[in-house]
């Protein structure tokens, strides 16, 4: 398989958008050797807790305070009233736009640093997510393989929607699901896969006896339909299926889908996206955006701040697929 796969993070807008700007007053320093004195006085008389990410000085310019509802002409008076030694400044008051919030990623830092000097503490993990360099080539190959399996599972449904739930610690398949909305309006592939994970944990709500063989009821792979299992085992000989299903008593099952990766042919809808939050999935990978998608298209459910769990979301793009076929 020569297809190159690209995995792109779906991040919160606050990482992607340009930083919001706010207006501040600046002035020039009369004598460069007084810089430290000016900064000291300003920090004492006009502390800027909300703009702590900004440096106070840009070569000979100094940041005074936010311009909110204050006219330029009054600035000098305000400085004087507070007891600032105004002869240290040239009284060339100007309004300047600066970043209102701290930069989250390097590209935002570069954008805001070019306007006014800025502090930045890079979060290496977020930077990797942002630059899509989190996974090694080896890991990308595995993700691509799981994505191919997911597409094969989708072929069992009328709309090609398939879902695969993987334990990334052992790279083994825990459960699969494909769209069964003929049996019920909410039985989207994600919902079916979640229920199949429950079945692997001796739970579950939807009966799917019709697609399990008698043999399988006694086997370890209770959570993968028999026809799919036969196909997958034949095609992907190097992948373990339901390996986590050792002897039930010895097996450590997580709480719901904790720690599991979810692969989906299409971007999950809002219902499915929230179902995966409830189920505490670790990461969600999807192949194509959906017009009713809740992980990038209509909204980004995984970035809603007030929820008690968040997972990471990636879109898997198969770049050279067309050339190959």
């Amino acid at each position, binding site marked *: 398989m020569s297809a190159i796969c690209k995995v792109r993070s779906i991040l919160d807008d606050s990482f992607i958008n340009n930083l919001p700007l706010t207006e501040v007053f600046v002035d020039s320093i009369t004598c460069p050797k007084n810089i430290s004195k000016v900064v000291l006085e300003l920090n004492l008389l006009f502390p800027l807790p909300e703009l702590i990410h900004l440096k106070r000085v840009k070569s000979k310019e100094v940041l005074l305070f936010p311009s909110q509802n204050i006219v330029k002409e009054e600035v000098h008076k305000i400085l004087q009233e507070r007891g600032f030694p105004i002869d240290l400044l040239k009284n060339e008051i100007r309004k300047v736009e600066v970043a209102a919030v701290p930069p989250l990623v390097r590209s935002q830092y570069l954008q805001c640093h070019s306007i006014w000097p800025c502090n930045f503490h890079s979060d290496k993990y977020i930077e990797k997510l942002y630059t899509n360099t989190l996974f090694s080539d080896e890991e990308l190959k595995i993700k691509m393989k799981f994505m191919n399996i997911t597409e094969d599972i989708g072929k069992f449904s009328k709309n090609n929607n398939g879902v695969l739930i993987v334990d990334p610690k052992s790279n083994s398949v825990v459960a699969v699901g494909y769209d069964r909305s003929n049996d019920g309006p*909410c039985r989207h592939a994600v919902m079916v896969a979640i229920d199949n994970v429950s079945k692997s944990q001796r739970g*579950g709500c939807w009966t799917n006896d019709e697609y399990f063989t008698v043999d399988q009821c006694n086997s370890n792979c209770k959570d993968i339909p028999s026809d799919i299992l036969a196909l997958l085992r034949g095609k992907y000989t190097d992948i373990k299926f339901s390996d986590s299903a050792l002897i039930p008593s010895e097996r450590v099952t997580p709480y719901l889908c904790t720690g599991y990766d979810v692969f989906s042919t299409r971007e999950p*809808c*809002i219902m499915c996206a929230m179902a995966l939050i409830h189920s505490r999935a670790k990461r969600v990978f999807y192949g194509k955006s959906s017009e009713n998608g809740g992980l990038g298209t209509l909204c980004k*459910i995984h970035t*809603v701040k007030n*929820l008690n769990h968040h997972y990471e979301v990636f879109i898997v793009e198969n770049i050279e697929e067309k050339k190959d076929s």
Partner: protein
Amino acid sequence: MLNKVIHSDILQKKRKLDSSKEESTSPTCINGNIKTNYFSEYEQKYMEKAFELANEALQSNEVPVGCIFVYEDNIIAIGRNMVNETRNATRHAEMCCIDQVNDFCKKENLNFIAVFKETFVYVTVEPCIMCAAALYDLKVKSIIYGCKNDRFGGETVFNVADVLKPVTTRKGGYRADDAMNLLKLFYQGVNPSAPSSKLKRKFKETT
């Protein structure tokens, strides 16, 4: 199975507490600002039924949320939270009801799309983001609920209606304090068989 709802001691005790509370505050107020007469007699009757189911959930060590679906003035689905029993975090009361409506339609040979469009949903807690999205997609006629859901609410935490633009009408606030107190009982792990004096103290501390 589910329709054998038994009034539990706890609900009765709580009602006694509430009746004493109501005397001291304005009788038309629930949760401070929503009037009880905002709910019709029918709506109150169905909401009471949903409360019985919420209580059954609490008795079964499930998050106490109860729900019923009403179509042409008939109850066609009754559900309560079943997450722990099924080890499936998506088995909320509303999702259980949706499956029952599907079964009902198959049995009665009705088109489920048409049935959902004329269905009223009564639920003790504001539907979560998942359930709200499911109910909006099914175009149910109306959702009537008890208290807000500040953990997962499909309006409170993230307003699903902003993106899905549903035809479904929504209103909440029916016995909101009672619905919330049921949730508090569950999350505090209060022993339901504790003597009422202890229960009263707990309520005072949390409200």
